[in-house]
């Protein structure tokens, strides 16, 4: 189910403001790609452009190509809703639907799209997705309880279960652990290691240890100053980025001597 993403010459605008300039990168299937960089450098904006989520903000648009599985996501006639069905997303703050139970939260992607499932099928999907998100053991006896009653780390894993229940080809994660404690963070990181056997994962993180622990390849974004567009400075295997990067700014950033 995992696919390669090829991004070429991608400019991202908010209205007339150029937020991210000329990004070209190759995201390999069945691997974890980490995006790092200082706040405001456009890495989250770039991530959201990979499933056209940034279009939720009025005036946002892109120029360039994002090709998933031979198909340009921004080609004419491509429905953003269809894009989001094949490229799932997990957000910074855990956000289960407050009106739904744990069970219904996992099925939200299907239920909200009016897809009808037999009870047995639905049960199977819920168990499969919760096992996939490493949450099944903790919640199997209280599936009918509200999702909002779980701890922060459990809620985030519930959101991951919800995202993988619609069988996306790619999973985008926007600082998925920044609101979580170290134990929940570890649980999510372990989970990412499991998920990459099946999914292409792109993660934005401020935590460089996390990037070096979990990712196979790392991209470093930087910004020259306020009002200037963010750029992809360098992208390479994670080991190379953290031990022997080819650009000085990358080395400064990963070693903490920055700005």
């Amino acid at each position: 189910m995992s696919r390669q993403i090829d991004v070429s010459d991608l400019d991202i605008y908010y209205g007339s403001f150029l937020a991210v300039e000329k990004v070209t990168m190759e995201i390999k299937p069945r691997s974890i790609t980490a995006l790092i960089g200082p706040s405001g450098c456009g890495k989250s904006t770039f991530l959201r452009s990979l499933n056209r989520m940034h279009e939720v903000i009025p005036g946002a648009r892109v120029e360039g190509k994002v090709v998933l599985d031979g198909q340009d996501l921004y080609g004419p006639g491509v429905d953003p809703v269809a894009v989001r069905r094949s490229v799932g997303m997990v957000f910074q703050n855990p956000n289960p639907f407050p009106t739904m139970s744990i069970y219904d939260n996992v099925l939200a992607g299907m239920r909200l799209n009016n897809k009808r499932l037999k009870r047995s099928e639905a049960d199977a999907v819920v168990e499969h997705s919760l096992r996939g998100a490493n949450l099944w053991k903790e919640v199997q006896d209280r599936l009918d309880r509200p999702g909002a009653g779980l701890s922060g780390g459990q809620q985030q894993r519930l959101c991951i279960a919800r995202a993988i229940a619609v069988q996306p080809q790619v999973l985008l994660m926007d600082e998925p652990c920044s609101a979580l404690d170290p134990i929940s963070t570890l649980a999510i990181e372990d989970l990412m290691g499991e998920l990459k056997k099946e999914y292409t994962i792109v993660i934005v993180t401020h935590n460089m240890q996390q990037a070096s622990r979990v990712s196979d390849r790392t991209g470093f974004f930087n910004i020259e100053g306020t009002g200037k567009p963010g750029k992809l400075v360098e992208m390479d295997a994670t080991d190379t980025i953290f031990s022997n990067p080819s650009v000085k700014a990358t080395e400064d950033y990963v070693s903490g001597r920055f700005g």
Partner: protein
Amino acid sequence: MSSPNDTGTRTEDRPGDGRTSPEDPGAAVLTRYQPPSLAASMHASLPRWAGAAASALGVLVAAALVAVTDVHVALAVVVGAVVGVAAFVVASRVVEGERAATDRFVTALVTMAFVVALLPLVSVVWTTVSRGLARFDGAFFTQSMYNVIGEGGGAYHAIMGTLIITGVATLISVPIGTLTAIYLVEYGGDNRLSKVITFLVDVMTGIPSIVAGLFSLALFTLVLGPGYRLGVMGSVALSVLMIPIVVRAVEEMLRIVPARLRESSYALGVPKWLTIVKVVLPTAASGIASGVVIAIARVMGETAPLLVTVGLTASTNFNPFEGRMAVLPVFAYYQIITPGIPPQAFIDRAWTSALLLILFVMVLNVGARVLARALAPKTR
């Protein structure tokens, strides 16, 4: 913390230099304004019954003034209040110190303002209950005024009329109001149309209810010709008053639904309209329901627009599209303004109708709370 000649650039010797620097004027000012020590700020406090005692003193003074002199009751109450508060504050000043005395003074003012605000409410409820209970009987709820000339009869026809007309008004207003609010919050954004709609809704909130009645009358006269009095005309008039309230209530509820819930729904590949129907509206359902119920309560007691649109009848009419209907406020109005013989029977019916209207509004408000709690998102 930064010295005046600090330009804001990072320097090696920066940490710890500000506070101790002798030429820092800010530090000098701060030393002069050191807070008092905790020990120095300890003080005794008035006993718990001090407030009650001061109130009793005020009442006593007022009563004595009325009994001994011939000043007006209102003036005596004012003097009593001033004396009570003054005694309370002075006692606090002596025992507890200045800051506590200020606190006591403001507390006394706020409490008295609350009592003053409560007086009309208590008075209205008391008057209505004491006079309305006379006819609060089975006949009042089961009989109409058909063939009733003097005593007896009831408001069954008016109760049904009120329920039917407000019911139809709700059926008209809730879809229009909710859809308008959804447009404003989810689709309109800041565009010209939504600004115009918001402005018109604000204007509609302020129109006098009689104007709503005349609008409905004019509308139906244009379409059907003159001389019609129909229940649905009253419903349309009430809708004109209700729609802006519903729009406002729903709009506010939709705005507080967190954007991240919409985003996570989009991220699951759910189209916008399904996100609104299945995520946004259910999340806001509790607030929307209570807003709607309160809007119903607001228009239920309207008299003027119904007076000109539905008229009055003595018999029960269940059909809002055919003939006049009776409603409680208009019924009460005519009973008290054109009493027959014996007059007391008419006056009693008017008071009981008023009591019933208050009960309806109360039940609706309590219902709104229950509904809000039942629909609210749960965490356990």
